[in-house]
């Protein structure tokens, strides 16, 4: 059904408009918005695989990447996406900027706003930073991750990967496992995958499970073996060690024993279950290193590849 929707959307792209000015989170999007973005993204997949990757869709537009947190794949993905669409892309180096001198987010935003960018892509360690920014600037704001709240383009690229591999999302059983408490990827995926009709299992030790999560229409498990049963997709999350400010877990090795994705645990899922991971991975902590590299099971590289296509779609749609 999703495919049909996407095809429909593709045919009538001209008629469809996105409901939001900014891409701050999946929570703000309608199913029509999501299908619109995914259908656009699909068209960019082949472009990215071809020799000439450059378009002039965003020629003359200025995109500023404002990353307050270190990032490899998201920042480079957004940078490539912007460049392939023909935009002028500037990535701010926070380490050398006035922010290090104590400038507030709003002042930084006002400064950048005065330079008339068309797009600001922001990643920030505080939840809601992109919302605050969007209230202060005239251009479009794209959230590349805010605190533990949302990471919408990651969820969209995950959805696109699943659709590419499984042909659909509706009716699939998808397990999201690991440090849910600190994860914006988990939150965005919960909103998106439930919206698209998946049956979502959330697997985490209770210390890493946010309060009242079951109210989002998911199934909660602290026993990974139960949570993986019969799943089509196993999405592993990074154990965000750098955010642990007190003892959530006893040790990495115990975590691996109970929550690391190992071949025996993967056996509980469906035979053709796929492994996903937003990266960067902690091999031997949340995922067995051989599983991560198993090209028959792991689609981690595809996620990165489709990430560029999804971000191109988002930049194109939200910039107009």
């Amino acid at each position, binding site marked *: 059904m999703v495919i049909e929707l996407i095809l429909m959307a593709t045919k009538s792209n001209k008629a469809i408009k996105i409901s939001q000015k900014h891409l701050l989170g999946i*929570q703000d999007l309608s199913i029509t918005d999501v299908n619109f973005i995914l259908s656009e993204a699909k068209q960019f997949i082949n472009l990215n695989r071809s020799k000439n990757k450059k378009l002039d869709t965003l020629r003359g537009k200025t995109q500023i990447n404002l990353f307050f947190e270190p990032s490899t794949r998201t920042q480079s993905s957004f940078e490539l996406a912007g460049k392939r669409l023909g935009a002028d892309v500037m990535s701010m180096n926070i380490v050398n900027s006035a922010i290090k001198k104590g400038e*507030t*987010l*709003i002042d930084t935003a006002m400064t950048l706003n005065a330079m008339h960018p068309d797009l600001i892509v922001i990643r*920030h*360690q*505080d*939840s*809601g*930073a992109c*919302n*605050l920014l969007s209230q202060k600037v005239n251009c479009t704001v794209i959230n590349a991750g*805010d*605190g*533990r*709240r*949302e990471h919408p383009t990651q969820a969209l690229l995950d959805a696109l990967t699943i659709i590419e591999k499984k042909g659909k999302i509706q009716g699939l059983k998808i397990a999201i496992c690991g440090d849910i408490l600190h994860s*914006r990827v988990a*939150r965005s995926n919960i909103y998106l995958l439930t919206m698209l009709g998946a049956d979502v299992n959330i697997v985490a030790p209770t210390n890493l499970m*946010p*309060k*009242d*999560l079951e*109210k*989002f229409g998911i199934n909660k498990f602290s026993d990974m073996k139960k949570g993986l049963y019969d799943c089509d997709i196993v999405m592993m999350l990074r154990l965000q060690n750098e955010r642990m*400010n*007190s003892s959530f877990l006893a040790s990495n090795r115990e975590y691996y024993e109970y929550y690391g994705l190992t071949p025996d645990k993967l056996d509980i899922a469906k035979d053709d279950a796929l492994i996903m991971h937003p990266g960067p991975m902690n091999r031997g902590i949340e995922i067995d290193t051989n599983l991560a590299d198993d090209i028959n099971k792991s689609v981690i590289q595809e996620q990165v590849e489709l990430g560029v296509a999804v971000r191109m779609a988002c930049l194109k749609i939200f910039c107009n």
Partner: protein
Amino acid sequence: MKKKYFLNANIIDPKNSLEEFGGLIISEEGKIEAIGKKVNENNIPSREKYIDLKGNYIFPGIVDMRVFVGEPGYEYKENFRTLSNAALSGGVTSVVTMPNTNPIIDNVSMVDFLKRRGRDKSKINIFPTASLTKNLEGTNMTEFGLLQKKGIIAFTDGSKTIQNTRLMSRIMNSAYDLNALIIQHAEDSDLADKGMMNDGIISTKLGLQGIPDVAERIIIERDLSLLEEHKCRYHISQISSAKSVKIIKDKKNFLKFTCGVSINNLSLNENDIGEFRTFLKLSPPLRTEEDRNVLVDGLKDETIDVIVSDHKPEDEEQKRLTFAKAATGSSGVETLLSLSLELFHNESLKLNTIIKALTSNPAKILKIDKGNLSIGNNADFCIVDINKPWVVKKENLLSKSKNTSIENKKLQGKVTNTFVKGEELYKI
């Protein structure tokens, strides 16, 4: 000062169990000379001019037990003059100020400064507290006896909690010996660490670190267990959750202590935070609608004694930040009464219950002769049109800081005049 006559008012004075239609006479010395139904057109000298209140209300001047003032150290947020003007416009004539200033009010030399500034710059009654521990560090207690002699009304670490149980027991013993009032802000700092709002579905959705209600409960349970062994004058500053109300209700059956609630927690809930409204980042945090309802019931059955404004002025710079970095607290002394009246208009509480929690109850806890209209007492009171509709606009607020939690809220009931010692210091 000329004698003043007010007639045709609805008078509520909970301390004297007075709730009747009548008048008020203020003596030339600014004292209450006569009050009640016996004061009417027929028995005042016919030559005297009187003010016809046409059914408007007279309440005793409000006693606000929890107010932060910026002096010394944060004068840019609020000074005694701006605090005084803000309070008067809300019918508040007595405030208890928190010691969280810079420097902190933790020694006798600071008290003289405070009293002098308070006297010179403000027109309302200022009752300063001092900190429970030196420099609010939670390790060594301050000189309750000497500070009290200098005029300190109570002891509290303000927005901080005494975490150390042994220290708390010793504080209680000293408070008993010196007859000092201890005010605790109840929150376990480990459980609340880095917390910004109630722990629940909204915090999960917004991706903000939650503060579980058990963080409050655990300190209340601990303190009340200690209080059984170490009796003293103990007051819980302000509670936020249904669980706390239940514990307090049970313990009040056999223990003597008191407790307050912020008008914010009585009127708002966590949903009001919406999309990261930093003006609603409060301590204790706003909790669920169910918690709010139980707090209202707690006032009804007198489990909760006092309503406070928890007035915490913060300049805009401290609020124009991400939720994580924004300062905690809201300005509220001037809207305390009007917002409380909402609970009367929506039939949650009786008017008398509300006024009692704003006047005679805090005065009784503090052992001060304020918040009443007793004959011979200073005429500190306000006149209120309880039906007058108005909208809270930050540009109209008199406090130096405009961080109100209820910007644009429509309220019903406004103070029209406020008197201190018989002198009209505020007129709408």
